[in-house]
């Protein structure tokens, strides 16, 4: 997490004294402080065990069983790798949900980041009113994950929705996009892109860190704006792009609410919005196949870990950390 772009809400004074504290020999822990450490940490430790670790292990165990919520935990039947076999070889709707999720992330995330960067570049000047623009662009990110907005969105792309009224102005006859298996997922992508405000704000913070001397020097050397953008702005911004890319991809994989609202919890029309987490929910809580759902959850976890690992291992080829900025 060394990728943060700006310091937390400004602390009251600068941190020059830390060196002094560091001279104390490491490794020697005074007894009272060691105990206090665990006293303060105890709620977190409890949560780590009870809310995170034990459920994780339980779900790993359940993924090898055919547990449904109705039988008692002590009576579950061990089925070995059956759930995983079924997932990978005998469940077309599972693979379909993987496809839908990957498609969603693959298209929506890059477009969202391009929109975020584009608007950030337009806003990256100090002038009056910039704060207002920044705030209003950010608003959808605050509201967009809610059921309320998903409801509005679905209606907007419905037969009588605002989008078709807009098309009507140009004499184009629209259709109920959200009921069309070809287009339903696209409307959800547009919803995700619409929430470009959060990465935009992070890009803006990153743009402020780019030293202006670089542009001055480049201008002296006769580099135009386009060249400056590709040679200075993009490389200098690459840590922030990387940060946004990782976060948005992981978030993109987890989209649930809008897909649930659009399809009324079914993943329809014709499974076209069956996002992975929605499939997980249906399997676990509608069909009560909790053993199978646990296996799906573990595959999801491993997949996300792999994707993150790929990002980090390829990142060193294109993420540029300047000396002062490397944290």
């Amino acid at each position, binding site marked *: 997490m060394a990728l943060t772009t*700006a310091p937390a809400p400004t602390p009251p004074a600068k941190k020059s004294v830390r060196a002094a504290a560091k001279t104390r020999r490491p490794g020697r822990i005074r007894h009272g402080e060691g105990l206090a450490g665990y006293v303060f940490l105890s709620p977190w430790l409890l949560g780590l065990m009870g809310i995170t670790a034990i*459920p994780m292990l339980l779900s790993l165990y359940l993924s090898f069983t055919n547990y449904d919520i109705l039988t008692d935990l002590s009576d579950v039947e061990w089925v070995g790798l059956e759930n995983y076999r079924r997932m990978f070889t005998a469940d077309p709707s599972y693979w379909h949900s993987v496809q839908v999720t990957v498609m969603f992330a693959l298209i929506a995330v890059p477009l969202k980041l391009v929109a975020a960067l584009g608007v950030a570049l337009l806003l990256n000047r100090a002038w009056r009113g910039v704060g207002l623009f920044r705030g209003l662009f950010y608003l959808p990110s605050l509201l967009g994950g809610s059921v309320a907005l998903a409801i509005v969105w679905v209606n907007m792309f419905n037969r009588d929705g605002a989008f078709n009224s807009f098309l009507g102005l140009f004499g184009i006859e629209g259709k109920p996009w959200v009921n069309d298996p070809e287009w339903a997922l696209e409307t959800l992508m547009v919803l995700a892109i619409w929430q470009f405000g959060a990465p935009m704000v992070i890009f803006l913070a990153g743009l402020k860190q780019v030293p202006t001397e670089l542009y*001055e020097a480049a201008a002296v050397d006769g580099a135009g704006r386009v060249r400056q953008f590709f040679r200075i702005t993009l490389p200098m911004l690459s840590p922030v792009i990387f940060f946004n890319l990782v976060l948005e991809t992981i978030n993109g994989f987890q989209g649930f609410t809008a897909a649930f609202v659009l399809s009324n919890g079914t993943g329809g029309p014709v499974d076209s919005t069956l996002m992975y987490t929605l499939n997980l929910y249906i399997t676990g809580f509608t069909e009560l196949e909790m053993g199978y759902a646990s296996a799906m959850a573990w595959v999801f976890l491993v997949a996300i870990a792999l994707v993150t690992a790929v990002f980090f291992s390829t990142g060193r080829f294109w993420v540029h950390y300047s000396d002062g900025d490397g944290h």
Partner: protein
Amino acid sequence: MVAHTPVAAGGDRTATARRRSGVGRQVVRLAILVAILAVVLYPLIWMIGTSFKSQEEIVNNIGLIPRRFTPGNFTEGWNNFDVSFGRFFLNSAMVSLLTVVGNMVSCLLAAYAFARLRFRLRRFWFAIMIGTLLLPGHVLTVPQYILFRKLDMVGGPWPYLPLVLPQFLATEAFFVFLMVQFMRGIPRELDEAAKIDGANAYGIFRYVILPLSRPALVTTAIFSFIWTWNEFFRQLVYISDLDAYTVPVALTLFIDSTSQSAVGPMFAMSLLSLLPVFLFFVAFQRMLVEGINTSGLKG
């Protein structure tokens, strides 16, 4: 502007010309921004407009602004189900506020330990905490549900324990991380001074760290509230009695009745449900935008 203008400009005339083209560029820039803003705000304005339209106007008037503003959708939506929306709002407020309190207290305690205290395995636990930052919450929903059910916490007249209890155990690693980062910026000489005055770890927490951590606590409180208010997945899983429904879960009831006549009330209630978030946005706009800077997670 300076940064992007070649420094080697010569003569007054070129400078003036350049300044003029700079102004032109500003205008173009502003025009583009306004156009984008219009697209971005359109859905919100459409929602507000539709909420105030009469049933008839929703069908006939495709314009943004209602010809006649009517509050009918609000009263109708409010009482659309056997339980009034007021109850749903209270339920949501309760869950959100308890989450706020839980996150503020538990994450502050954990962050203090990580940022300031020296104890065995600190680095190990800290690495684990960072690891849980990226852990997708959906993965744990099934086993958590099973455990909470085993503990008899699911259902009943007060089904919110599974939603709220984890928040009192600092499971929102994001806020722990945010506060650790913040506390690292508080000068350690303050700790040392307090120590000389005889304060131990608890005293330093009470008299140095706690009062100075207010900005981080406020950020945590605001984001906790907004995220929980908008949260849907876990509330959907744990709440089954209509009496206990929170606002997001109640809103999905409208989707079931897909008749066209429900659109007005549905939009009105959707609009009302966004109001608290919007008010927070207006009041703390600056802070929210800066807060996202520090972390970028979620949002």
